[in-house]
């Protein structure tokens, strides 16, 4: 936030970039330190601002899930910022880009660390506001149109969240997430279910699950590609994180048929939508919806292994989705188009770019040995253990269709004759955009590292799941600190 304020004052692009990167790296260092603390020290690190007792204090809480999400969010934001700087687009022309970007990252981090519902609400509003601005910054026609829809829909989501907040406070007398589990359990069943559903609707709109996902494929393709990458990679995951938090901490109740059904339908609907389009950004936006379905599937199954699979999927998907959008952005930047009819044969122009696409694409589709395979394998195995055949079937079908869609993109954009035609002496694609390429390569390597270090990451996810499924650890940490 400090960086954002500084960036508003400092107007020259070079200085703005310096401030942004300095702030992001410092925050990343702090986040990594917190992560290490949650692994080696206490399971949950809590801090009550002002020292007030826990039911009225503003608490910042980091358990393994929050810590790892923040670390990934900050590192991805830093890398995408590098990409945006390389794109030489809005980041130079508008003095507002850098401050707003930092506000976005601040909101995301705060949402992960929020220890009470109202802090989370404020964080959501912060990052939503920043995303409204970033999405419409270039003020192109399509951006304004899609932006209007996006803003109105998110305003409705905020209204639902705030109503749920008000009702929670009225029913229990607190909004602190440490105090809520006990008090919510004491409520009559109907009231508790109602509040649960209301919160699910609010967070579901953010996470883009069925039937609340319609805004996503409309709004995301219109933004500049670096913005789409960060929004796609992170914002929906914040919604998914919120769902995970509410279902494990506030309403621990084991498996939920409703959530499982939602997950299954989301998976299928998202990928069917992806197949029916011919524009890369729109296809990838539909895939976000589908993959969120997988993540929510883990939440629905609610066993320790399933939650661990969810955590693993969150980590994997942020990286893979961001890298796919970045590659799509490079294609769009170099050729000026992103539709199948207008672009083709990219692999002939740059084989390496093809590789950069293939790695995350196959990972998304769930092919071994990539991280996507592990994430889906964990989820499906847990689904089989719990004998939810239809859910496993949906996951498998969605996986196959994802592969189909990725192949479509490959054939449409990367194979075939080179369109638009280029002179033979034009330099290689990647060398034209060095910063963007570096950023993309970095994230693709990160996805490979997730696959390579899957063992330790899975262990980490299992311990994160253990902490998540035992609310008392969280509660005691917040009360005691």
């Amino acid at each position: 936030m400090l960086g954002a304020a500084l960036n508003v004052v400092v107007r020259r692009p070079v200085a703005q970039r310096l401030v942004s990167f300095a702030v992001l790296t410092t925050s990343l260092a702090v986040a990594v330190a917190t992560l290490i603390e949650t692994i080696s020290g206490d399971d949950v690190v809590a801090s009550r601002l002002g020292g007030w007792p826990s039911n009225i204090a503003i608490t910042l809480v980091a358990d393994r899930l929050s810590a790892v999400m923040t670390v990934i969010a900050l590192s991805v934001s830093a890398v995408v910022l590098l990409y945006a700087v390389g794109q030489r687009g809005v980041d130079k022309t508008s003095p507002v880009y850098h401050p707003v970007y930092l506000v976005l990252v601040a909101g995301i981090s705060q949402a992960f660390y929020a220890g009470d519902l109202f802090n989370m609400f404020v964080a959501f509003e912060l990052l939503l506001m920043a995303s409204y601005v970033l999405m419409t910054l270039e003020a192109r026609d399509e951006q304004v149109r899609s932006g209007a829809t996006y803003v109105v829909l998110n305003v409705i989501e905020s209204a639902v969240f705030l109503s749920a907040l008000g009702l929670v406070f009225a029913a229990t007398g607190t909004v602190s997430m440490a105090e809520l589990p006990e008090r919510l359990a004491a409520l009559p069943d109907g009231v508790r279910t109602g509040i649960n559903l209301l919160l699910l609707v609010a967070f579901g709109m953010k996470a883009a699950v069925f039937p609340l996902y319609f805004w996503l494929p409309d709004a995301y393709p219109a933004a500049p590609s670096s913005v789409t990458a960060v929004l796609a990679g992170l914002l929906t995951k914040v919604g998914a994180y919120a769902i995970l938090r509410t279902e494990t901490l506030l309403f621990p109740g084991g498996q939920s048929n409703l959530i499982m059904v939602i997950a299954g339908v989301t998976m299928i609907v998202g990928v069917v939508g992806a197949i029916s389009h011919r524009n890369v950004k729109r296809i990838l936006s539909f895939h976000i919806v589908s993959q969120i379905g997988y993540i929510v599937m883990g939440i629905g199954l609610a066993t320790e292994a399933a939650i661990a699979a969810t955590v693993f999927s969150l980590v994997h998907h942020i990286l893979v989705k961001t890298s796919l959008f970045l590659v799509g952005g490079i294609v769009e930047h170099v050729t000026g188009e992103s539709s199948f009819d207008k672009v083709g044969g990219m692999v002939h122009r740059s084989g390496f770019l093809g590789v950069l696409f293939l790695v995350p694409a196959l990972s998304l589709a769930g092919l071994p040995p990539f991280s996507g395979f592990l994430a889906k394998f964990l989820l499906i195995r847990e689904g089989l253990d719990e004998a939810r055949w239809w859910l496993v079937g949906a996951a498998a079908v969605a996986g196959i269709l994802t592969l189909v869609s990725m192949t479509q993109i490959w054939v449409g954009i990367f194979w075939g004759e080179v369109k638009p035609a280029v002179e033979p002496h034009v330099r290689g694609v990647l060398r034209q955009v060095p910063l963007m390429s570096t950023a993309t390569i970095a994230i693709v390597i990160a996805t490979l590292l997730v696959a390579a270090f899957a063992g330790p990451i899975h262990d980490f996810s299992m311990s994160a799941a253990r902490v998540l499924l035992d609310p008392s650890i969280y509660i005691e940490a917040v009360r005691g600190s």
Partner: protein
Amino acid sequence: MSLTLTFLIGVLFASGTYLVLQRTMTRIIIGVGVLANGVNFLILAAGSRQGSAPIVGVEGEPTDPVPQALILTAIVIGFAVTAFLAALAWRLHGIEGSDVVEDDVEDRRNDRIRSVTDDTSGAPDHEDVRE
């Protein structure tokens, strides 16, 4: 918490929702404001009981300050979002000449395909995000 207040909240939510579902940006913005007010009233009505001001030293039983804080924050946030929406509507007006929110790109494409009755090739137009 009086019946009138509850009724008012219901009316605000209903009219706010109706307005937000309209076609014109102006109505949408008003609807957003009405909806936000409805939510704020909800917090007020559900969360606090009648009493005196929550300041130390005032006599009588003080009300709970927490919902008031929540509402204040929500009002400020709502104000900022409404301002941004108004700017967006202004820009939309500059582009379109009116502030009607257009159909989604997909719907427009499908309408176009449906209206082309003599298109025998079977291949629809492909104009996605960039028109």
